[in-house]
């Protein structure tokens, strides 16, 4: 019988930040093309894009670093 090896928590943290960051980044790009009717304070800075990118890169790095690790 093969013993299952557990993925580290950092793998899952990376994965969820990667997925959510990617969605938020894409939403930001979409909103540049089709601006939203709901205007928020400082929306001209396009926070979806830069904050989504930060999450995507941070999550992507954690995911990539731990993708082959087990504990």
């Amino acid at each position, binding site marked *: 019988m093969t013993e299952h090896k557990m993925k580290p928590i950092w793998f899952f943290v990376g994965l*969820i930040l990667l997925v*959510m960051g990617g969605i938020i980044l894409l939403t930001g790009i979409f909103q540049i093309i089709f601006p939203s009717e709901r205007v928020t304070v400082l929306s001209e800075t396009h926070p*979806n894009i830069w904050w989504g990118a930060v999450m995507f890169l941070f999550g992507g790095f954690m995911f990539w670093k731990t993708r082959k690790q087990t504990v």
Partner: protein
Amino acid sequence: MQAIGLTFIDWIIILIYFAFVLGIGWYLRRFTKNEEDFFLAGRKNSSWVAGLAFLSANLGALELLGMTGNTFKYGMYVAHFYWIGAIPAMVFLGVYMMPFYYSSKIKSVPGYLKLRFDEKTRVLNGIAFAIMTLLVSGINLYAMALVLHTFLGWNWDYAMWASAITVAGYVGLSGLMSAIFTEIIQFFLIWFGLFLVSIFGILEIGSLKEIMARINEFGSQGSFTTLWSTSSNPMQNGMLIHWGGIVLGLGFVLSFGYWTTDFLVVQRAFSAKDLRSARMTPLLASFFKMALPFLVILAGLIAIALSMDTNSGFKLLQDGGQVNYDSALPLLIARYYPSGLVGLGVTALLAGFMAGQAGNISAFNTVWTYDIYKSVLNKKATDSHLLWMGRVSTIVGVLISLGTAYWAKSFPSIMDYMQAIFSWVNAPLFATMLLGMFVWWITPNGAFWGLVTGMASSFFMWMAVKFHWFHESIITMSGVQSDMAANFWRAWWAWVICAVVTIVISLFTKKKPKEELIGLVKGLTDEKHDQHLPFVKRPEFVAIIALIVLVILNLLFW
């Protein structure tokens, strides 16, 4: 207020979170083979994993909303909860107390009381902790549903049941391990989901200095932006408290009582893979704790600064003529976050609520199973039966929490009782623990009756003020005081009463033989921990760094 509208993308992000945490519970189920896996996550976590979980178990959304709101109400004095009200206690736990906890291989804090004193002290504390945990869990659930209903317009019942069933699902599947995994995910989601509020606030207002200047310029009391310089006179600070109350009540009793004895947080350190990792758990957590005011307190200060500018259009909600301070954070999210980020912000709050509840439930199922069920009801229970009982008590605990939440709904002011509940249970327990760990001649009867008297006196003081049997100035020794100040002082007196009764009774009752206390009491135990490591890798070194950072932060905002 008009509910914050969620778009399709926001819903997708929220649903991803729900699917993710349930998926993690399912994934971890295969690694949960015995009771130690279920209740202590197999004791194989690194200090970073245990440390982040240690902090996150305390970082519920109720705390995020409440502390941001409290900052609006009391000013920067709320930062004391994160600095003097946490760090010295976490350092003390890591350096001095953890060796006794971890080395005795206990599975819960009441388990230590059994080894150090006797069964009746353990059961008393186990029952008090179980009741407190379920009350807090239910109030958390109620608060979550209230927030989601008020700000998002969600159905009260659906929101509560959906999150409760999800928590029951993943904790029931794999116990403490899945609770820890989701707590760490919650930690990252809270920072990514809410720190943007602070960034935007600074961008909009100009700078941190400008935020402080606005509050000082428009506010009637400059003390909303200081930590200590106005603490010698309660009239000069927003919390209406003297520094003595902060240091003795919050910094000593409430803080040490919570961070060193509350099984909800200490359980995370028990899951560490070795003694050094367990000692490092609260020490690493202390650095993240010190950073939280830059998220929570700063958001509260931004809300004050914006509300003072009539052109900003920012105003807290009013409920029946009363200011709803807890509305500060959700209103800031609505102000700054466009579609997509709103989903992330709401997910961060949801994650906070659910992880907080999971923390309570995983602590409850352990104390119930070991300290009440196995200790009193079924002493011969097998390991597999205890694992089954852990799963059953998870489901039952969630159901009782739901009942408590509905009860809280019918008595909205019950949320005010949360700090009071902590001062009934944790403050006296800290006196028992401190004396038990550091004084060998404290007896089982002394500890038991001291604990009973401490808990009863704290409850009596709360009742006496509530029903006007006497004025709370007798407790606070001041002509003016806030509810918070009364909580701090009540905790202090409960601690003193418990300590005095414990010592006096111990002088006249039978002591345990010293040989039975080896490994449990300082002075009777070998304490050469981590001596083989270079100094910079020892927990003591990390503790010194934490204390230096603490002093610098307090001086910066003096």
